[in-house]
């Protein structure tokens, strides 16, 4: 995207505008362009290859530029109190709506697991204590104890709707920060859908994307297994997951991309807005000075209390 590596920017193709015949230079990872001479929107289609399959689906933009920019301003001003002041005052710039390539992944996950399952029980125990008159007395009380039993088993489930980035310019964490997309609004990909907008082809290899999908799937399985375990509690959950019957399809997702430049000496911060839901995601630069002041203040307060308590005794 905006910060795509330079060797990719250098990788350009020459196309000619079908409306006015002008020759246009186009970044090779883009699927669309608008002619600078006659303003005609073109859609570029390439023969599919393993790392650049044809898109199956597209989710259309719902949030327009103004709404996205307002969401970003709100998000910046409500950023944590530890955010750098110059960041909170910065104005977001260079906004573009882009159809971001992502993979929609699904599989059957078969897992073997083992865990220690905690089953609670109560016991009545006797204890000795001193009563109000200073006599030693024996009393009873009920205590809850936990007995750990080991459990081994198998777990099978469909994994569906895992979404991972296929764009080198957007990390999977950055995309996750603006997820979820409402996949009920999926539409079959048609070139007309991206006409007039920026759209990228995948710039990550399919192997990389499979790896990201596997990681997300295993994280999902782990969460499912935690919910699956019986007992009052459990520990030492270990599992081995085998993913089979995989399906992976390219989907173009609507994203507004903003760059926030807040200091001369720092790189701009990338902020994404989900073009379907308006959800904002990005990393807020933290002010080390503010954090240091807060920590020092905390220490002084605690120290003060400690002194006050010590001086009372």
């Amino acid at each position: 995207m905006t910060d795509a590596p330079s060797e990719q920017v250098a990788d350009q193709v020459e196309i000619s505008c079908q409306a006015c015949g002008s020759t246009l230079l186009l970044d090779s990872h883009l699927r669309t362009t608008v002619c600078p001479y006659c303003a005609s929107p073109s859609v570029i289609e390439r023969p599919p290859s393993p790392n650049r399959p044809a898109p199956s689906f597209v989710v259309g933009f719902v949030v327009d530029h103004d709404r996205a920019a307002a969401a970003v301003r709100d998000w910046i001003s409500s950023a944590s109190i530890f955010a750098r002041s110059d960041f909170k005052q910065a104005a977001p710039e260079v906004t573009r709506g882009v159809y971001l390539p992502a993979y929609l992944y699904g599989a059957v996950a078969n897992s073997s697991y083992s865990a220690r399952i905690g089953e609670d029980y109560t016991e009545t125990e006797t204890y000795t204590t001193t009563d109000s008159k200073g006599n030693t007395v024996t009393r009873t009380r009920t205590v809850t104890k936990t007995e750990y039993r080991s459990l081994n088993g198998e777990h099978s489930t469909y994994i569906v709707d895992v979404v991972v980035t296929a764009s080198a310019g957007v990390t999977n964490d950055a995309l996750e920060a603006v997820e979820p997309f409402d996949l009920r609004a999926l539409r079959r990909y048609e070139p007309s859908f991206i006409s007039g907008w920026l759209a990228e082809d995948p710039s990550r290899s399919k192997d990389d994307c499979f790896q990201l999908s596997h990681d997300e799937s295993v994280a999902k399985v782990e969460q499912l297994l935690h919910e699956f375990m019986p007992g009052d509690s459990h520990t030492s959950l270990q599992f081995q997951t085998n993913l089979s019957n995989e399906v992976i399809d390219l989907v173009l997702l609507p994203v507004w991309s903003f760059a926030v430049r807040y200091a001369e000496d720092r790189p701009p911060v990338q902020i994404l807005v989900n073009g379907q839901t308006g959800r904002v995601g990005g990393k807020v630069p933290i002010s080390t000075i503010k954090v240091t002041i807060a920590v020092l203040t905390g220490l002084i307060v605690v120290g003060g209390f400690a002194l006050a308590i010590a001086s009372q005794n």
Partner: protein
Amino acid sequence: MTTAIEICERCESPLETGDLRCSICGQVSPADRPHAEKLTVQILRCRGCGAATAYDIKHQAPSCTFCDSVVEVETLEDPLEQSEGYLPFTIGQDEARKAMRHWLSSLGWFRPSDLTTSARLEQLKPLWWVGWVFDAESFVSWAADSNAGSRRSAWAPHSGQVEMTFDDILVSASRGLSDAEVSAISPGCDLATIRKEPEGAQNATIEQFDLQRSQARQQVIEAIQVIAAQRVEQSEIPGTSFRKTSVSVVLRKLITRRFSLPAWILAYRYKGRLYRMVICGQNASYVTGSAPYSIIKIIFVAVSVVAAMLAIFAAVAAS
């Protein structure tokens, strides 16, 4: 409108018109768009005026920048569910009335003695209520606590996996009937008697499915999980008492049909209050409803019990 167009390659569940993906396993339904053979550059033009089209947020679709007409694209359809057929009423009004008297007289001693004679029928209305009937194969993983193998705690963990088939399982989609009413009357229905049109009752209320297909599938899948957990408790988990039963269901060949099923809804009045009854429209022995209790009889029994206990206490104290 809800006909199956093809079978999912992966889980063998039918896909329906407008499904872009399998709702069970996520497999994409095949597209018929050809792939580009070489690099092509195209400007998509309006069929009406020839100007370029672009995706437009206002229309949520590609539209012409000049004449504002919208380009048709294939979208995921999520239509309201429609009934595929009706089970006919085989129980008429008179039989329904008779079934009501019979049911009231069968309720037992705690009911008012004059219930059968004094209950006045206020309304008797035929209703076609809606439900899904599904068949599926599945592979169920389960884990649970049971008393089997327990040591100091009353519970011990167990786990397993089992193949499970579902045949003609009915899930209520009705707003008019409660789930308890549906489970009481639905065993009286014969699903093989399905007809294209409503038959056997005049002026019936015909309930509509008020859910979209995607929500309907969600409800059916939730119902499958509940049934799978019940079956696992009945026949898989060792022991006699269970808790924290979890299931993970991998479905195949899920086929869901949408039915309209017959029921008589009765309202009767006893001593100024209204009570409701529901009778299966195909078998009058499947009946459910509410009925008054005799307060006097209950007080009488309670007083007798207390008196008997006092007498026993007195006897014990005296001895």
